[in-house]
């Protein structure tokens, strides 16, 4: 019964957290009192505050939410289709691939950033999958290992792009790869909202099917599901959502691993229940982390640093808890 209450709570908290986040930031002008005045229209001279709230904070809040939600929901879906609780877009190398694609587009402007991130994200995840595949079987460990290799390749390629970039662009690329939301603006939000929404929507539609796929290919086929087709659809949707997140916010490592496991503690592994919560709580939790990262010190710590520091111990814990062998 307690789980039920926590679930309901997860559905309710996004809105208050979004509203509260409007009041959080380093500005000395936009004090909570001044913002209240803005909303209650008791003050006239509030252009600066208005701009801080609506042009700086609001797009950042919405972008944090979308990025967090899309990383969590894609993490949960790739865990189900690869039958691997120790994976997410970061471990699959998808993030590095998308980051390379985005950096390439930023440096040479030959393709839209989102599209390039998607193409290279998909390329990276396919590479990881086919490298790990042996006798039509992909073990948990081999997928992690091939993800490391693919991630390494794309990180190296990203370094080459940085090497050949002009110094002005270089700084922005380096900053952005660390996983960063402080450049959020309406333009970034606009560029990512459609691909993220499409990806999230497709995964949402397939949420129950993930349960069938998570039982294994033979078990899916014999009850009437075409696992190859469904997995490709879901993988493309997950890649679309998380590569768009990478294109606007850089590499926010292990977040897509962390959140699905937190949600499973509440819902159990049933994806029909956990998928919507992954998006809602994934968005809310990243927003809370971002609120911390912009208030904890006078300079901003990239959010990817926080998620790595949270996610890494969690990964180790899962690795100890899950019985992983070379063949399962």
């Amino acid at each position: 019964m307690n789980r039920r209450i926590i679930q309901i709570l997860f559905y309710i908290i996004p809105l208050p957290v979004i509203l509260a986040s409007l009041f959080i930031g380093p500005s000395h002008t936009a004090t909570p009192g001044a913002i209240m005045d803005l909303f209650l229209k008791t003050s006239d001279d509030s252009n600066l505050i208005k701009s801080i709230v609506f042009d700086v904070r609001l797009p950042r809040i919405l972008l944090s939410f979308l990025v967090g939600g899309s990383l969590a929901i894609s993490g949960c879906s790739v865990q189900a289709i690869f039958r691997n609780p120790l994976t997410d877009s970061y471990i699959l190398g998808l993030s590095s691939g998308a980051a390379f694609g985005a950096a390439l587009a930023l440096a040479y402007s030959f393709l839209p950033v989102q599209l390039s991130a998607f193409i290279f994200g998909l390329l990276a995840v396919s590479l990881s999958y086919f490298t790990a595949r042996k006798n039509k079987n992909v073990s948990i460990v081999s997928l992690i290992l091939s993800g490391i290799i693919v991630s390494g390749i794309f990180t190296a390629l990203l370094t080459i792009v940085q090497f050949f970039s002009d110094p002005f662009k270089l700084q922005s690329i380096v900053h952005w790869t660390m996983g960063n939301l402080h450049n959020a603006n309406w333009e970034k939000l606009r560029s990512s909202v459609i691909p993220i929404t499409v990806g999230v929507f497709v995964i949402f539609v397939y949420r129950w099917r993930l349960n069938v796929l998570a039982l294994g290919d033979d078990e899916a086929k014999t009850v009437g599901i075409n696992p190859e087709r469904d997995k490709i659809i879901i993988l493309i949707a997950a890649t679309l959502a998380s590569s768009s997140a990478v294109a606007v916010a850089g590499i926010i490592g292990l977040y897509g691993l962390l959140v699905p496991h937190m949600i499973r503690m509440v819902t159990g592994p049933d994806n029909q229940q956990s998928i919507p919560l992954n998006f809602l709580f994934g968005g809310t939790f990243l927003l809370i982390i971002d609120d911390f990262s912009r208030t904890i010190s006078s300079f901003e710590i990239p959010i990817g640093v926080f998620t790595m520091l949270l996610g890494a111990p969690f990964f180790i814990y899962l690795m100890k808890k899950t019985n992983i062998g070379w063949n399962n």
Partner: protein
Amino acid sequence: MEQLSNAITVSNLSFSYNGSVILNDLNIDIKPGKLTFIMGQNGSGKSTFLKVIAGLLVSHKGVITILGNDSDSLSFTDRSKLTGYLNQQHKAIFPFSVEDVVLTGRAGFIRYVPKEADKTASVNAMRKAGVLHLRNRYYTELSGGEQQMVMIARLLAQNPQILLLDEPTTHLDISNQSHVLSLLKQLVSEGMTIVAVMHDPNLAFLYGDDFLFMKNRKIIRADESMQAWDTDFLKTIYEGNIQAIPFNGRALLIPYLN
């Protein structure tokens, strides 16, 4: 529905895996509404045969007809209405509840999310298989035998016309063996066709209606002149290492030591 003379017809079926021939030009038919057991030595291709029939191993040669349909032209969804398949072993990664596992048997009827009718069908299936008391347990924490029973409940939720079972009693203790076998008998009496690979020829002879044997990459039925439990026949199948003891008009087999 038109009464078909055969539930499954296999013509000239061959299958190779990694260059070695596993099934070589098989011809057999399986009678509808009967409990058919497939026996044979380890590695004789029993499981492979069942997998090919279930549509899990493609790229075979020959024609398989399932209830009048060419097997190769069936979609996964159409096939799931005709045949259900029980794997020899199933390993789950995520700790789904038993209820969630059984509900996946309804996938062929579910477009995106299960409806109330699907949940009712799952509950009925769990009740029939005798696993309703496990419904909220984690599938991963059950014993091998209990998992087997849950997968059988999943098949009942799927409710196909033919069940293909790979060693349905292997992981079970003797009381669950009798539970499963009587369930299979009941299903057959309700009109279902069941084909099961069996390791234990005694259980097969005690409860089966028809018996098939795999030998030298072929599948055979004991010919008209002799019974399936005829010692001379079985010695050719199991290469001599058995002794048959007459029992209730059939036979019980025990290993023979030189």
